[in-house]
């Protein structure tokens, strides 16, 4: 996995709450058996005026001029500023894959849906929870200033604005460790292989029916 330590980038504001994963990447694109290539279809139904189909050349499609990522100033954004309960709905990891493929590295919101939040970390994407009033303030600043950038430091757990204001954020220790070092967490878990085997052995004694074969 790609490591994440520090990132500075243009911020795009997505001003609606409860953005669900169907909205982030509609189902027709879930038919792919790959992990990459979802970027052109990120927010497909909001971004384009026509109905998106897999394997289509997105550069030929009519853009919705009102959608935030279609505005010139946000096209190269890598920090997404969002509202509460971002990423609710389906567990599809295609949602963080699409955000990542578009170029996002950080998502800031007052709250995230649990599964989506978790999926981000597995893909080198950092979701940051900041208080509602701070998020409000960032929305105002982004809209007021062309080229607005934020600097995110995972080591220090801070978000710094262009004017020098610093906000700290919380992140779970294990996730932070994996992300900072770009660790494959399967490898980390397999270091505990003996413990897993010991658990299975004990469980086989107390609840043998759990180990019956399916056939």
């Amino acid at each position: 996995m790609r490591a994440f330590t520090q990132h500075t980038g243009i911020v795009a504001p997505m001003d609606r709450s409860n953005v669900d994963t169907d909205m982030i990447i509609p189902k027709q694109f879930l038919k792919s058996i790959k992990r990459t290539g979802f970027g052109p279809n990120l927010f497909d139904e909001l971004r384009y005026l026509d109905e998106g189909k897999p394997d289509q050349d997105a550069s030929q499609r009519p853009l919705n001029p009102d959608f935030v990522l279609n505005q010139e100033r946000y096209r190269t954004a890598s920090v997404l500023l969002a509202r509460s309960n971002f990423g609710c709905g389906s567990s599809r990891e295609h949602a963080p894959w699409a955000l990542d493929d578009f170029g996002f590295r950080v998502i800031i919101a007052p709250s995230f849906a649990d599964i989506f939040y978790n999926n981000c970390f597995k893909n080198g994407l950092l979701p940051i929870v900041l208080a509602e009033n701070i998020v409000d303030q960032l929305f105002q600043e982004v809209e007021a200033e062309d080229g607005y950038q934020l600097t995110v430091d995972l080591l220090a757990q801070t978000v710094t604005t262009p004017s020098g204001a610093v906000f700290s954020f919380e992140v779970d220790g294990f996730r932070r460790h994996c992300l900072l070092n770009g660790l494959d967490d399967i490898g980390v878990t397999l270091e505990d292989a003996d413990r897993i085997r010991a658990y299975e052995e004990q469980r086989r004694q107390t609840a043998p029916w759990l180990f019956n074969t399916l056939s």
Partner: protein
Amino acid sequence: MAGKTLYDKLWDDHLVTQRDDGSALIYIDRHLLHEVTSPQAFEGLRLANRKPWRLDANLATPDHNVPTTDRDKGIDGIEDPVSRIQVETLGENCEEFGILEFELMDQRQGIVHVIGPEQGAILPGMTVVCGDSHTSTHGAFGILAHGIGTSEVEHVLATQCLVQKKMKNMLVRINGNPGPGVTAKDLVLAVIGEIGTAGGSGYAIEFGGDAIRGLSMEGRMTVCNMAIEAGARVGMVAVDDTTIDYVKGRPFAPTAAQWEQAVAYWRTLHSDADAVFDKVVDIDATAIKPQVTWGTSPEMVAGVDGLVPDPADESDPIKREGIERALKYMGLTANMPITDIKLDRVFIGSCTNSRIEDLREAAAVVKGRKVAATVKQAMVVPGSGLVKAQAESEGLDKIFVEAGLEWRDPGCSMCLAMNADKLGQGEHCASTSNRNFEGRQGFGGRTHLVSPAMAAAAAVTGHFVDVRELTH
């Protein structure tokens, strides 16, 4: 020391190791797989040269992409080549790694959350995961069950464990007994309306109270299925006689001495009387009416006798904008009666409501009636091949077909419209599924979530109607 909640017990019994940083390794007893969220996980195993940790913990079936007509054509019946590749890839992966799969032509094939319990592959006290958020369904059996992403699918395949942090405990108590015509679906929609789509975020919800105790296992699955729509990854119900009676005799359920041993353990799977919850929500079942969602989020729900809300009445600006946006998308006007909403299509199916009791409920309403002339299509999609066979043995298929509904083959179908079944732009659909997000059932489609009985009533009248007016 206070007693334990059901969630505490399940957690403790699956804890492999607790790490210093607050995370824990949790053992997974059953892993369900389907074609959409697994290909990249198998690919990951291959690239890292890893093998599944324990083959017999896994069970797979294709469901999201499968056609619901012409099943006898098998895989050739999947017209969309991209869908076909995904279904074929699941088959190849299961074959290569040695995982049991109920293939397209197997009568046991169906929606992943329907087939597991049906086969007794899902047992009380287990931990169950699947690359699908509606895995919460299995919590109905006193199980710790939740959806995971594809990286975690790979992690579970490789290690039989998940890295987790313990959630908080929430009890949703639905007190009293709902009136006739008010179903499990109405109960859970009312709960979501009450606590909101983020209300359960960070919590494992246990559903309790008389109304839950009074439900069948299928009803409890409907309730737990939609816990995720209240923001909770996990929904659970304590084990009781209803649970144990349901499991008994299923193909993969334990037998003889193992059965006795299992039942003794399962009987301990309830929250202790002195257990402490971080949050308790009380809901009065007697006040719940048949529910209909009017908006683009499951929390945008009202009783069938209610009105579409007026954004002007909402003081919170973000919520007001949300309501305005939803009304625009749904093509509805503020303050119109819910019963004035007309339907173009009706969909009875999905992992929320495609089991035999759901189909019986719908059939009872349409029996001797006809689908309204203004409804373009009404379809019934059973949750599995076995549900289909059972319904046919009871003659339900004939009732549906005589009333003008289509009787289909099992799969997810129009719940998320990855196969050929979808809504046209602007069409309103009465749907027994679980998500009414924009575009969920087709580009520009408008979904209203309801119970099977309410969907059936809408099919025969062409608009929403209180099903109790037709049946009592």
